[in-house]
């Protein structure tokens, strides 16, 4: 019972530690001294040295790594070089845009994809299936930021239903905030829905050829009930795997989509931080996103055991 989850959690922790080493090392070798950049070119060497000491930049490499990761564990991401506020505050503020955006997109893509997958699988080879899968094939190929531009053109420029970009903040009212997240979420969701629908369809087709499905039908259970209750549940493993991967893609995808819609999320924060050489912010945000990816994939793997009891005892 315990072996599989314990092993999976141990792997996730190892991956997290390795990832933190990669992120730390990558941004250690960045050219340019943050203290020099903060103080400008006119600062004396003495001033720079003093600031370096204050920022802890003169400490040995290993010590700085331990200090950084120790801070991460306590949710202390350090101080932004350019904004002079704790990075965690910046991240929390931006997360309030990026996280709802990714979650809404994930929900949207699931709501669209599962019924389409079910429909296609149950009418395999028919006209409806061909049209649905043709559309899905197209949806996979369309870059989400281009799709976003088309949505802006249609719904913002032409129909004036929603704003073309920007975010009023959650304080302006949930309705207004959601309205400005509608197009970005749709742009993120549709290509992912196309992928998910294809995966759901093929997983369902595999399941539908199983003996227990025939047995269930033979027992007189209506087709629809067999599809939803028996087939879908057993097709969930590949679907969940893809959803886990997609959440990572969606979070990273928000980086581009936020730029299309001028949303003040994590993605824009990262870009601004790169341009301003605010490396502590880049380091922290990248690490945070990577940690989210690792944890989500861990949760997906652990949830297999819930969906498929046979996996519970697996070492």
């Amino acid at each position, binding site marked *: 019972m315990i072996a599989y989850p314990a092993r999976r959690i141990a792997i996730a922790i190892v991956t997290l530690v390795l990832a933190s080493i990669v992120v730390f090392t990558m941004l250690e070798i960045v050219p340019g001294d943050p203290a020099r950049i903060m103080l400008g070119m006119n600062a004396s060497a003495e001033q720079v040295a003093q600031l370096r000491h204050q920022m802890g930049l003169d400490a040995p490499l290993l010590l700085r790594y331990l200090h950084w990761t120790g801070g991460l564990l306590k949710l202390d991401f350090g101080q932004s070089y350019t904004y002079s506020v704790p990075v965690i505050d910046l991240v929390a503020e931006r997360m309030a845009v990026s996280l709802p955006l990714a979650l809404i997109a994930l929900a949207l893509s699931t709501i669209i994809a599962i019924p389409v997958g079910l429909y296609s699988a149950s009418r395999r080879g028919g006209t409806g299936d061909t049209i649905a899968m043709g559309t899905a094939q197209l949806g996979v*190929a369309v870059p989400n930021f281009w799709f976003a531009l088309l949505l802006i053109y249609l719904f913002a420029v032409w129909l004036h239903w929603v704003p073309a970009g920007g975010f009023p903040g959650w304080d302006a009212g949930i309705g207004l905030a959601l309205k400005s997240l509608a197009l970005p979420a749709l742009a993120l969701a549709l290509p992912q829905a196309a992928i998910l629908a294809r995966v759901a369809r093929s997983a369902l087709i595999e399941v539908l050829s199983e003996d227990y499905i025939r047995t269930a039908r033979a027992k007189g259970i209506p087709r629809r009930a067999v599809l939803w209750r028996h087939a879908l549940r057993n097709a969930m493993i590949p679907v969940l795997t893809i959803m886990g991967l997609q959440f990572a893609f969606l979070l990273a995808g928000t980086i581009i989509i936020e730029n299309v819609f001028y949303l003040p999320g994590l993605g824009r924060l990262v870009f601004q931080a*790169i341009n301003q050489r605010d490396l502590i912010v880049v380091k922290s945000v990248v690490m945070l996103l990577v940690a989210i990816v690792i944890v989500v994939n861990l949760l997906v793997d652990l949830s297999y055991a819930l969906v498929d009891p046979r996996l519970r005892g697996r070492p």
Partner: protein
Amino acid sequence: MTLHASLLGDRSASLLRRALSNRSFVIGLVIAVAVAAVALISYVWTPYDVTRLVIADRTRPPSLAHWFGTDHFGRDILSMIMVGARNSIAVALVAVGIGMGIGVPLGCLAAARGGMLDEAVMRLNDLVFAFPALLSAIMITAVFGPGALNAIIAIGIFNIPVFARVARAGALSIWPREFILAARTAGKGKILITIEHILPNIATLLLVQGSIQFALGILAEAGLSYVGLGAQPPMPSWGRMLFDAQTRMTVAPWMAMFPGMAIAITVLGFNLLGDGLADILDPRSRRRQ
């Protein structure tokens, strides 16, 4: 020998027949060849010079003179798409090459040796998978600055675990087979067996994955150059063209239309090619037919 040759001839003939009757494969192949041809033609001929700015002709709608219209500098969009195809193909191709070149040996090695080495390779995979391509591209850009080369590296690194997994899974399914046992009894080493027997047997799997990763590479490159992390101006790239189009959507929607369609059609083509190949080469679908 002759019997062997004629059997082989029959096999390839039936493979060809299957290929030509597979709709996905045929459409995908036609698109892929067309895109490659456009990129090659752009080396010797484009309707207009993409480096020449003609301000008097800026943001002209599609016409007989400029089929896809012109951009905000008066450059011919068709010509830019043709030249941009080179960049997209080159980035995606090299990125797939990096992924295959490093991932396949890693995957084969993991399958051949097993044990600690297998574990280490798989953990390395987990690590790379934790960095979405865009994120690693951002990090690489933060360190080395933006550019087509860094886009290639970022996408290529992301491809490594993909190919490592496919190669490992494929190799693991071949190792228990009898002809491998025969080769081992004949005294062949694991590396030689991998090269002589495993690789030819997983080549089709790798080809299918290569086609899919190529399509993903085109998308990723477009995304990166859209946010300014890919190819730098004046080198035309499809993603960059979309970035330029964004603020001019109301006055020149064609600036966004055609580069986007170029990306979508190319990606569609290579995805169809991959799907078609998988269908043709997968013995299970062969039985269904």
